[in-house]
């Protein structure tokens, strides 16, 4: 299903989403709560700085990144144990400083470091994957006002037309009733 609209030249274009601008962080915060309560799923809030408590206001659940981090940590720990135990106990057993071959205290720093390193990688790349990043372009940049203000002093809510709750007539009205200005249909291309 694709939703079409006429552009300035009278051609019909496919619509990606509907965007709305808000005047302040407080306004966008309250609007986000209302949009959440309406049951929308495919939508996002944009501001030039993080707004405290926005995840709850948007109804975002707990992120799964921490589970990926834990998996990374376990992998790092195992790697470090194996990479040290296999050579220094089985392949090249050597007495160093009169310590036993399997000297856990000597292995700990590497175990710690690799756990941290793998956790960091898992976290960053896990976050990228969940966010579908990196990508070179996004349909939202077809909205000029958004490009001008989103990283400066604008506060936006964008609801995708793919959302099952989206309605051509009701959604703009909803945004308007929340005090939004510049309600715009954003083309996909």
């Amino acid at each position: 299903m694709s939703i079409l609209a006429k552009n300035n030249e009278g051609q019909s274009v496919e619509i990606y989403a509907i965007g709305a601008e808000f005047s302040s962080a407080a306004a966008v915060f309250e609007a986000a709560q209302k949009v959440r309560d309406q049951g929308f799923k495919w939508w996002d809030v944009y501001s030039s700085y993080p707004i405290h408590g926005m995840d709850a206001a948007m109804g975002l659940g707990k992120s799964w990144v921490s589970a990926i981090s834990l998996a990374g940590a376990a992998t790092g720990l195992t790697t470090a144990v194996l990479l040290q135990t296999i050579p220094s106990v089985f392949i090249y057993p050597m007495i160093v400083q009169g310590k036993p071959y399997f000297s856990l205290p000597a292995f700990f720093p590497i175990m710690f470091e690799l756990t941290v390193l793998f956790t960091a990688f898992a976290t960053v790349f896990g976050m990228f994957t969940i966010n579908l990043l990196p990508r070179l372009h996004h349909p939202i940049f077809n909205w000029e006002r958004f490009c001008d203000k989103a990283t400066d002093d604008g506060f936006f809510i964008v609801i995708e037309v793919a959302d099952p709750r989206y309605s051509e007539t009701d959604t703009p009205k909803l945004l308007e009733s929340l005090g939004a200005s510049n309600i715009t249909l954003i083309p996909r291309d």
Partner: protein
Amino acid sequence: MSDHSHTFTPPSPERLTHDLDLVSKISLVVGVIALILSAVGGYCDRVQALHSYLFAFLYFYTIMAGAFFWTILHHAVDANWSVIVRRQFENIANLMGVMAIGFIPLFIFREDIWKWTQPSELAHSVLLQEKHGYLNMPFFIVRLIFYFGFFTGAAYFYRKLSTAQDSDGSIVHSWRLRWWSPLSIIGFGLAITFSALDWLMALDYHWYSTMWGVYIFAGSAQSSMATCILIVFLLRKAGYLKPLSGEHAHIMGKLLFAFTVFWAYIAFSQYMLIWYANIPEETVFFIKRNNGSWTYLSVFLVAGHFIFPFLYLLTQAVKKSWASLSVIAVWILFMHGVDHFWIIAPVVRPDGFSMRWTDFTSFIGLAGILVYVFIRILGSAGLFPARDPRLNDCIKLTN
């Protein structure tokens, strides 16, 4: 976001309304009886009983020092999350006066605990002669006065101005407390480090570790956070401190988690460097604790003081619930005891792990008296700083 809720009614000041008079008196009686039993134990075996008492003394001393640390840290960084729980830290830190009196038996019988204080020791120990510039009696007494003077005075000052704000609501108190907090941190750092050196490291004056002060500090900050979590949990059970939410629990849980890791980091750094370098003068500490049945306690310390709390506190949900947080707080307070037992007991029980009944009596004795004084302190002022300028921020906390 602080500006999206337009109506905000500050919580009304709370005071302890439960009658804990009987509880406090029972704990005082139990405490005094237990201390008398300890004294009897001391009559039978003075050295063992004194070390039992030193163990109990340092267990509580470190918790109070840690509570003072959290109080001044709150002011130094101008924190908002901790406003409501801050009064409990102030209350715990104010027990330090009891510890000042509690040190008297240790001072009187110092020669049974710290060998370097024996006048005969100096003549035949070259090492002690080298360390005499620090380990001498006049300087020891000066340091004692500094530790207890600083902790008692500063803890009193911080609670005094905080309770004064309860009655007049003046912001000047907050400013004054903040102004003094960086200086207090310096004083705290010196006091906790050198008291740890004087009372624990000097149990064997041959031994030294440059990480000793921070090792004791790590355990002290961790256990005092656990104590505060427990007190807040109990107060909430009794119907107080209702403005606190799971968000506050989450922050305290995160700090508990952080200091669990910090303790392990410091403990391991201390162990590994000594283990690797293998210098007899340094390894003596760990040889005592890694031989015979003490080994099991060492392994238990690593597992119970770090690995178990680490895994337990890893998930978010556990930290957001006061009940699950207080379970691990009890465990950490138990492990804090194991930690100090592991530091002190092997010095006088070289044959292996053993516990004396004086360990229990001196612990219960000090605990009883401290509970008595704590209930008095708790009832003497509001349960949270009700007119602190940051109270609103604290209640609306999200993280």
